[in-house]
């Protein structure tokens, strides 16, 4: 044991940097597609026909009650059997989008439910269209209500993308294990990787807090 030594690891800074970028890219892709799933799904759960509602609820329950790692394995090993051989990064993006989408549905649905009926009725009574009621009356207050849960889900997502390393998608954690295999400085490598994640999360949280202050300027509790 030769004490904590980072110098060897820092030779690989380019690898770590590309890992960070891939983690960020993966998170952004998943956020995008997962949010689309979340929005459409929440609309479907709330206003869709019965069979659609049941299907969506089953989807949400299955995803939320099984580990993401297993979902990742299933997506990664199922796609080839449909003659679809995707690179690990793509498989991870798909699996995580499905995962994030299920949580997004729950969060957005709760946000829609949090708007009192009286607000919607007040909008209707003004003689504006249903879309206008949604756009101008429901949307922003609902966004404010889901903002804390949604942003912490994004933080969990960024951290969760690390399991993509288990199918060799080249994101940050994978880069860590690669450098470990070259340097054998396991503890230093992973401490360093954890520190990078921590910094990313702190930056994200700061941005979200600032975003919340800018977006939601009206006083809370009517």
């Amino acid at each position: 044991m030769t004490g904590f030594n980072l110098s060897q690891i820092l030779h690989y800074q380019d690898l770590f940097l590309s890992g960070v970028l891939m983690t960020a890219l993966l998170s952004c892709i998943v956020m995008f597609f997962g949010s689309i799933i979340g929005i459409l799904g929440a609309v479907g759960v709330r206003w869709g026909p019965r069979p659609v509602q049941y299907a969506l609820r089953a989807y949400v329950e299955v995803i939320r009650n099984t580990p993401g790692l297993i979902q990742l394995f299933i997506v990664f090993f199922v796609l080839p059997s449909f003659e679809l051989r995707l690179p690990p990064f793509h498989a991870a993006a798909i699996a995580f989008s499905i995962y994030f989408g299920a949580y997004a549905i729950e969060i957005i649905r709760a946000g829609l439910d949090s708007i009192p009926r009286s607000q919607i009725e007040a909008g209707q009574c003004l003689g504006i269209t249903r879309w206008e009621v949604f756009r101008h009356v429901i949307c922003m207050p609902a966004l404010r209500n889901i903002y804390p849960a949604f942003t912490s889900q994004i933080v969990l997502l960024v951290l969760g993308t690390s399991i993509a390393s288990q199918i060799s998608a080249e994101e940050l954690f994978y880069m860590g294990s690669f450098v470990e295999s070259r340097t054998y400085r396991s503890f230093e490598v992973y401490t360093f990787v954890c520190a990078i994640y921590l910094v990313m999360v702190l930056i994200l949280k700061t941005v979200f807090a600032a975003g919340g202050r800018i977006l939601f300027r009206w006083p809370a509790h009517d």
Partner: protein
Amino acid sequence: MRAFSGSDLIYLLYALQWTVALVVIALAMGAPLGLALALMRTSRRRLPRYIAMVFIEVVQGVPLLGLLVFFYFGVPLLAGREVAPVIAVSIAFTAYSASFLGQIWRGGIEAVKGTQWDAAACLGITKWQQFRYVIGPQAFRMSLPPTVGLLVQLIKGTSLVSIVGFVELTRAGQIISAATFQPLLVYSCVAVIYFSVCLPLTHWARALEGRLNGAA
């Protein structure tokens, strides 16, 4: 190569006990630490509040996977000798569950109205007794649903232990999958097992929540 058979299923269910064991350890050791964190976080003094906050932010700011390998490689270094993986893994999960429990229970404590503290203080009992008999029970009731929710999160989290070679449910799945070349079937079985453990807990959490909202 061989086909997936009934004995594989039994092997999976057998491995489930390690999943359960890890969760029990994480809760048993995480709960006292989590309570301490919650009390520190709501303390009137700044230092304990600050320490608890940093602990929670750091543990929740790194991936669970990172936490696992950090302790897996870190604990032997610290101890200066080989340490059974189960110990390192337990420490990681303890820290993980404690940070979340600390956060959840802090929320519960803060949700109890200030007037309850005042009322308790008027009884002329110690600060700890005020918590033990007046605030704590109310806070516990309010934080029970998210606590059960955390249980589900922990169960799912234990799947990551497979990466350090610990044979719990997911690792057992990987082993069988490698032997049978039937990953889809094997992982589906694994998913079904996780699902049937987690779903009742999720529903319980939801029922508790509903009861709480109904009562409020």
